[in-house]
């Protein structure tokens, strides 16, 4: 998770030679804080140091991979929803996740101060506050930054939302109390586990996986069984015809952004519960992976996004297993496979039929 602490900015100005010249320049420029990847995080590989591979260990890998994959998939689904209705990439998506996680944390702190310490109640309120707040934020972003730029080159939208991501990230770092430091996230789920040989099936992990599946199932239900979902799918397939059916295009776009952003908040809370820690950089990393996952799956396809998310997690896990002596290379491996996949299937694994009118 090396990227987690990177900040936009700080350009190459830190490239000062230490020691060669101890001027005021050096002092000023080396002020840049270097956030390093946090070793305390349980990663897919950290459970295994043994050379032998037994069933229990294998199950552990699978479980960790599934957890990662679920988070990636939830983020990727957002990207693909936005792209579906508006053909744009909203790159601040990952940082919306961060803000969502911090909103949940702030809610928890607030509840504790009020003396409300029932864990299920806390969790429900936290989740509700985070998803609701992020849904509103998502709508605001769509209204103010994304919709007005419809006529501009796609790259402008990409860059403007990237910059917005920086604004969100920096705001968390600067304005959340001690936001620059990693924050402990409360462990609100039951901590017990069932031990099956080397494999510890943790209840909280199972519950989170189940919640993720439920969220995706709820999204599927919304998209395929409700009138709103019908409108979203119609807009995604043919915006203009959808409008001539009386669908308020702008409203549908806003609702879609709300849904996607709420899912990101959900993933953010899940991330906090899984690692018991959040920092202002988590969203950047998850956002980039979620975007890659949505792309390798094939933009615009929900199934593609889910497939892409789990595929990416699988690649990281396989990278850990295949490179036992250098599991640090797992991200190198995963991204190299992403690049290779793009060469093989330039429009993603689940192909949208694209035909150009000449």
């Amino acid at each position, binding site marked *: 998770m090396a990227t987690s602490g990177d900040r936009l900015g700080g350009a190459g100005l830190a490239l000062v030679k230490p020691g060669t010249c101890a001027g005021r320049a050096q002092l000023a420029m080396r002020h840049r804080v270097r956030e390093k990847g946090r070793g305390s995080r349980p990663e897919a590989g950290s459970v295994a140091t043994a050379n032998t591979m037994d069933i229990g260990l294998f199950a552990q890998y699978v479980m960790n991979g599934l957890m990662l994959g679920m988070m990636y998939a939830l983020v990727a689904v957002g990207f693909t929803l936005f792209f579906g209705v508006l053909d744009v990439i909203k790159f601040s998506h990952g940082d919306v996740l961060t803000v969502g996680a911090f909103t949940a944390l702030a809610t928890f702190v607030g509840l504790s101060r009020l003396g409300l310490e029932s864990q299920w109640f806390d969790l429900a309120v936290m989740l509700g506050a985070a998803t609701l707040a992020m849904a509103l934020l998502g709508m605001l972003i769509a209204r103010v930054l994304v919709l007005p730029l419809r006529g501009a080159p796609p790259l402008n939208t990409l860059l403007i939302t990237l910059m917005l991501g920086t604004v969100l990230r920096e705001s968390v770092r600067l304005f959340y109390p001690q936001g620059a430091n990693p924050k402990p996230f409360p462990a609100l789920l039951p901590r017990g586990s069932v031990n099956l040989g080397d494999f510890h099936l943790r209840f909280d992990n199972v519950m989170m996986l189940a919640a993720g599946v439920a969220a995706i199932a709820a999204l599927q239900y919304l998209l395929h069984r409700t009138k709103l979902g019908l409108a979203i799918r119609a807009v995604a*397939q*043919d915006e*203009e015809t*959808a409008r001539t059916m009386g669908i308020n295009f702008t409203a549908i776009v806003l609702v879609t952004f709300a849904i996607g952003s709420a899912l990101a908040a959900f993933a953010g809370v899940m991330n906090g519960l899984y690692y018991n820690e959040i920092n202002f950089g988590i969203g950047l990393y998850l956002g980039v992976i979620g975007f890659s996952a949505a792309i390798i799956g094939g933009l615009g396809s929900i199934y593609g996004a889910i497939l892409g998310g789990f595929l990416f997690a699988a690649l990281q896990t396989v990278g850990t297993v295949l490179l036992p002596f250098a599991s640090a290379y797992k991200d190198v491996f995963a991204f190299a496979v992403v690049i290779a996949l793009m060469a093989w299937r330039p429009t993603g694994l689940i192909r949208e039929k694209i035909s150009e009118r000449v």
Partner: protein
Amino acid sequence: MAGLLRIESVFTAYDRADVLHGVSLTVEPGSITCLLGANGSGKTTLVRSILGLTPPRAGRIIFDGREITALPTHKIIAAGIACIPEGRKVFPKLTVEENLRVGAYGERSKAAVAARMDEIMRIFPRLAERRAQLAGTMSGGEQAMVSIGRGLMCAPKLLLIDEPSLGLSPLLVKENFNIIRHINARGITILLVEQNVHQTLAISHQGYVLSKGKVVAAGSPDELKDRAEVREAYFG
């Protein structure tokens, strides 16, 4: 003249070039009014102007006594206009039933939607057989049925039909025109935009001929049938 739809000297530009140069026409309630013209005469642009997809640069469009010129598309539809677009434009990855439901998007009553759905299925038994099929996998003729059915789902006062015969075989065209007449007989006013002159005039009450963005002839079908402008609009 009252008219259900009145278009008053509309100018519409597309990419800095005027496509419509002051078009005026009236659609009487209960009628089938047709708009004839060769390719490129501006028919589709007029439909887009009415629907608010390409708002006019000048002129007024009045529907049911209310100006709709600058309204967003969904409000124009809500006012009681439905559209069967050129090329049918079914949603390819929605099922037949879902396509029809999108057509009734503005209708709040579930019972009304269900009733209309049943009615459409009666008109097009073929759609009833294929309720759950993805519309994109159907034949051109079946897609035409989906598109017409979808247009009827919101129980419009005015139905705009843009080139229903486009790309269809003569047999299907004939069938489609029968259906259009049938729809009209049930009290829905129709503005039929077509290039197929003879069959269109055969079912219309009133007609306009468009050429190079202007109305060059107007009148009853019998008057139009033998007018030189009609032939000229097509064969120069």
